[in-house]
């Protein structure tokens, strides 16, 4: 796939020089440099080949700014890094928002953090930052915000027209699960336009990473996505291990899988509860918390915390699992299998629930690709893309599990998929427990002070919400030079304005809930 692609790029795109790189070292298969005038040709090629835009990011190398476009296909991993150097004095680049809908937000993000102006972008309004910011925060040197950009700070000013009015859903609203704000233009109960406003919980993780060493940043990962903390922890640890080429003992790999899958069940359970609370049923919320507490007890025993875990270390684990953990996990798995029938009776078979969720928020395959959605939302559209299987990191390749997919792409599908995923997670845990090898839980000789070689890596993991990508640039110091988090909720939320168009307010809440958003992860 990769070789053929390289030949094709050479033939089709004028002047492109794609290079194949080692996937185990870098996390992507192919790198390509381009220039602003050739960008649209390159992007057009990938669009035609049905690649999706995985991530779009910017790095400030002081002498130049580098834009990195990561393209990938859904079913066979073939990740291409397209780099574009631009002048830091006059940072201008062509927009690709017309070809890839997901670039619409990524470009806005880069604009407000780096000051890059994208020509042809329909709306360069600020997405994250507050009024009163006077410089581009992610630039290495302090670059003041020019006055014409200051005007863009007030990202959304609703005005009222005849027969329509605006509703602010959030930042404090029970259904946004945190501090997301969605400005809705309403015609009666119908939504004409939805515009999410982010940044109410922007905690500067990416900026912070540049101020911390690799070890110091470790606790941040658990706070980014507090529901899937283990997955984020795992992703970061894997990325640094790839960067510094640290080996991991087998026992640690399996324990990581068990812990991550327990955490995945935890997250999906909370989603089920919170989603039903969105639909007006409050009791399932308490039932799932009851199950969830059982998992927390087990994980707390080894990780030491209930929510914001920091259990994995570079080269292994914080501490080894004991018999209590294994017995507790076994007991939980047994209990959980019997609980599904309860949820089936209480929720899945409920006529009101089915009528509320069937046929709304339908996502087509092509739409999913354009927006780069991932996780259960992508799978509901019928694309069997699960990175645990496709990129089989850690020790997932030795374990058997299915990828549940939906047929309709509606909200009910995402519910069914999450329930099925919990069942598959239980299967994974059972197998991992059976296969759990002995031996050390930590690699020997992990240096106290990491000095990774110069260069960049990309690492993906499948979190409960979808694809998490971590892009780290090292400059041989003991902390990252640049760290970009490609978070699943961010790209999943992008599709919301399109899904919400023309639906009832109640449906919009149901759709928003089905995306399983974790706000600190979106805002970072």
């Amino acid at each position: 796939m990769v070789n053929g692609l390289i030949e094709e790029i050479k033939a089709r795109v004028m002047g492109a020089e794609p290079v194949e790189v080692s996937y185990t070292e870098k996390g992507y298969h192919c790198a390509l440099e381009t220039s602003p005038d050739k960008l649209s040709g390159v992007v057009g090629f990938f669009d035609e080949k049905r690649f999706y835009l995985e991530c779009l990011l910017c790095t400030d190398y002081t002498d130049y700014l580098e834009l990195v476009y990561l393209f990938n296909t859904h079913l066979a991993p073939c990740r291409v890094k397209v780099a574009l150097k631009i002048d830091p004095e006059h940072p201008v680049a062509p927009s690709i928002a017309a070809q890839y809908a997901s670039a619409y937000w990524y470009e806005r993000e880069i604009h407000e953090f780096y000051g890059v102006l994208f020509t042809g972008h329909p709306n360069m309004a600020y997405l994250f930052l507050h009024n009163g910011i006077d410089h581009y925060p992610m630039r290495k040197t302090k670059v003041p915000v020019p006055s014409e950009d200051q005007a863009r700070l007030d990202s959304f000013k609703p005005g009222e027209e005849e027969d329509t009015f605006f509703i602010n859903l959030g930042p404090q609203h029970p259904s946004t699960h945190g501090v997301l704000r969605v400005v809705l233009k309403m015609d009666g109960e119908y939504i004409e336009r939805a515009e999410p406003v982010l940044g109410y919980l922007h905690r500067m993780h990416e900026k912070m990473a540049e101020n911390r060493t690799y070890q110091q940043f470790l606790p941040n990962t658990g706070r980014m996505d507090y529901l899937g903390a283990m997955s984020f922890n795992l992703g970061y640890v894997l990325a640094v291990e790839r960067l510094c080429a640290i080996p991991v003992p087998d026992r640690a790999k399996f324990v990581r899988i068990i812990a991550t899958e327990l955490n995945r069940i935890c997250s999906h359970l909370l989603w089920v509860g919170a989603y039903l609370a969105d639909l007006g049923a409050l009791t399932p919320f308490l039932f799932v918390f009851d199950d969830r507490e059982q998992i927390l007890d087990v994980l707390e025993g080894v990780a030491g915390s209930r929510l914001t875990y920091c259990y994995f270390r570079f080269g292994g684990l914080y501490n080894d699992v004991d018999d209590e953990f294994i017995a507790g996990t076994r007991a939980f798995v047994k209990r959980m299998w019997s609980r599904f029938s309860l949820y089936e009776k209480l929720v899945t078979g409920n006529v009101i629930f089915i009528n509320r969720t069937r046929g709304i928020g339908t996502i087509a395959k092509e739409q999913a690709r354009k927006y780069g959605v991932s996780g259960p939302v992508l799978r509901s559209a019928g694309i069997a893309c699960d990175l645990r299987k496709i990129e089989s990191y850690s020790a997932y390749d030795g374990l058997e599990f299915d990828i549940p997919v939906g047929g309709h792409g509606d909200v009910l599908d995402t519910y069914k998929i999450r329930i099925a995923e919990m069942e598959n997670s239980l299967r994974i845990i059972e197998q991992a427990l059976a296969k759990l090898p002995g031996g050390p839980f930590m690699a020997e000789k992990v240096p106290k002070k990491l000095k990774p070689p110069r260069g960049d890596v990309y690492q993906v993991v499948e979190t409960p919400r979808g694809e998490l990508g971590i892009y780290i640039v090292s400059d041989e110091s003991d902390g990252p030079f640049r760290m970009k988090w490609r978070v699943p909720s961010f790209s999943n939320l992008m599709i919301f304005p399109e899904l919400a168009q023309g639906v009832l307010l109640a449906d919009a809440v149901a759709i928003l809930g089905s995306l399983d958003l974790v706000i600190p992860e979106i805002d970072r």
Partner: protein
Amino acid sequence: MVNDLLKLAGSDAGKMVIGLVGVLLFVVVNALLLTWAERKIAGHMQRRIGPKEVGPFGLIQPIADALKLLGKEILTPAKVDKPLYYLAPTLIFVPVLVSFIVIPFDASLQVADINVGILVILAFSSITILSILMAGWGSENKYSLIGAIRSVAQNIAYEIPMLLALLPVVMLANSLSLREIVEKQQGLWFVVIQPLAFIIYFIAGVAETNRTPFDLPEAESELVAGYHTEYSGMRFALFFLAEYTNIFIVSAIAATFFLGGYQGPVLPGIVWFLLKSYLLVFVIIWLRWTYPRVRFDQLLNFAWKGLIPLAFLNLLITGGLLKI
């Protein structure tokens, strides 16, 4: 002096005053009890205990809540339409109180046996909508407004099947007086003859009281708190009080019309009446903690395309059979 008072109490006007005081007392006690019961029942359905620390079994809890709400700052948002905003919580109480006047608690315990009792209840219950609309409009809050509009559409839609479901009973009993309807059920409860009407009435009743699965006017996950979003302290408490009293009234009418009211062996009539009523109240609470909320269009479709034709059919069949 004492004799004078007794004489006054014996007179019609006196009876009315005593009745009203009794009704007021009952309304307050009922609401306090129901808030406690709701939280306790919800707690037990959700694998927890519910209020427990405040008084034995948490029984003092509603009193603490009420006192706290009484002691809250009287807060009027700056932009509200003052007359409407002030009037709404008071007005919501009128239908509640009037409905109690005609409900027979026992064979001899009824404030006034009006021979068009059911008409009084149905007529006055429409005022509830008016006050909700006033609250929603007067609050100058978009959530409140949407909540109020939803409420009006919902109440109008569900009042029709409610009325149509009560009519067959009126035809069977040949009377509009509530007491006579109860008396006619001495042998057989009307629920046996009219099960469909009972179910339709009960569903419409749940919708009329804005309870889950029909709690759209105050749908928390969509509209924050619906029409009473901007109300605080005592005014909010009045809405709360009215809601719980309405639940009782809907259940009490169902008990009167279909379950034989105060009729029953051994125990005194009032005990039977309260037992039946609170059983239905329990079912309403049970529904709330089990079901999700329906969507607005589904709600209206259910009323106009489902309940109303069914209720009409039921009415027709009953009428036809009675003629034969």
